């Protein structure tokens, strides 16, 4: 029971942080600013602090399962668009990283910055552009 209570308390805090988020307009501005900053500092294929092995596995599982709710387990698309290399070809890494972190206002894509750091988002985008790895056979699917 205490675990559930703790979880509920934590969730209440999360909700509080949701409420701190601004309007759609503000999200759009954040999106633009993140994009600009990422472009300026040249975050692209090699993030400064790449996630380590176990965190990578967690990220792969998250992308395939949770992003997969909309984009499909195989990332070939669902209610959301395909995230396969050929579908992303021509899009800049910086723009994609900004989308992962702050979502796309006016669409069903939420921002995931509560769950992934900038470096992790950069790593995810890099992997997506190369062809996303399968969930490790020894870990979670």
């Amino acid at each position, binding site marked *: 029971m205490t*675990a*559930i209570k703790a*979880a*509920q308390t934590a*969730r209440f805090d*999360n*909700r509080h942080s*949701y*409420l701190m*988020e*601004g*309007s759609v307009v503000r999200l759009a501005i954040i999106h633009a600013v993140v994009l600009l900053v990422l472009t300026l500092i040249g975050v692209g294929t090699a993030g400064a602090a790449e996630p380590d092995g176990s965190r990578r596995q967690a990220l792969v599982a998250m992308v395939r*399962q*949770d992003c*997969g*709710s*909309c984009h*499909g*387990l*195989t990332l*070939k*698309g*669902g*209610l959301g668009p395909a995230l396969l290399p050929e579908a992303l070809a021509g899009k800049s890494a910086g723009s994609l990283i900004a989308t992962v972190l702050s*979502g796309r206002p006016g669409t*069903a894509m*939420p*921002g995931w910055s*509560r*769950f992934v750091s900038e470096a992790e988002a950069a790593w995810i985008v890099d992997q997506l552009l190369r062809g996303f790895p399968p*969930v490790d056979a020894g870990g*979670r*699917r």
Partner: protein
Amino acid sequence: MNWRPVIARVLAGLATIVVAGCAGQPVTDLRGTGDLGIVIERASGSVQIVDHSRRQSLGRIEGLGDLSHAHATFSRDGRYAYVFGRDGGLTKIDLLARRIDRRIVQAGNSIGGSISQDGRLVVAQNYQPGGIKAFDADTLAQVGEVPAEYAPGKFSKVVGLADIPGQGFAYALFDAGEIWVSDFTDPGAPRTRRFAAGKQPYDGLVTPGGRYFMAGLFGEDGIALLDLWRPEQGVRRILDGYGRGEEKLPVFKMPHLRGWAVADGKAYLPAVGRHEVLVVDVTDWQEVGRIPVVGQPVFVMARPDGRQVWVNFAFPDNALVQVIDTLEGAVVDTLSPGRAVLHMEFTPRGEAVWVSARDDDRVTVYDTATRKSLAVLPARAPSGIFFTARAARIGF
């Protein structure tokens, strides 16, 4: 010596024994299918056939392709499950013989389907190519289709497909913001009526009697409601502006709708971008309450008797399930069935509910009265759980 007659006689004798053996076999296996069901194992392309009286697995069937977001409907004799895979696969499973009866790949990207009033047509709803397709329920031969071409050259993803009385199917077009109702009385020439619904319908349901079709909207706060008895009146909006202009919370997984939402004269519906279950009186469609819950609701499912409503949640609150007492209008229990709870299915009369936990590779069976675990079944990344009782329900 001529051995031929001797060999013939021996063979005839053997044949008699074999035939007798076969004839005897079904007697020992004879059973109904009313307490059978399937559990989707989404990542391995397999399903388990389960018995919800004995709370046990009867076996696993492999080779169903990509089963992420898989859905199933049942033949009206309850013998066959039609499983719709994300990759467009449509697999007909024989629950008694425990094998694949037929399998086709009918689209590039599919999310579910339904069966016609007379049980003769199985209809799939597709994202790619956007539209619905009808198949002969016996042979899976395609007999008709309605491409979701809402403007010249523009096709929409189809969501919320539900069978309705009169060989009809109602569904929503995510990209077009419309509800379509197709009459498949002549499967080769379906007649379709179109209705404006609202921005980004994400799923739909038909009420248990088959009269109303509802489409939940993602792009605006409200639900589109169509009276199928009086479709000429068009879509009306209910729960309009339920968000009260407040900033939406992020939605990390789309909610789902189905006819299980209706309990004791009220519909219990997931709010979008709010951690609430919305309650609507189905006689006048006015909001009569909203119940705070721990996260973004995904499935809001009434126990068949309507006294309880069970709710699971989108990431990151997907390790919890909450139970609403409909008389109290409040959450009375919070359960932790495992990591990534994806689906729930009640037994036909609701004494138990089966709950899948993807990341803990298990299905937990709960006693709905005491909320004690009755059984835990191992399963590989389980998602949807579908029992044959759906075969007899409108809109499933």
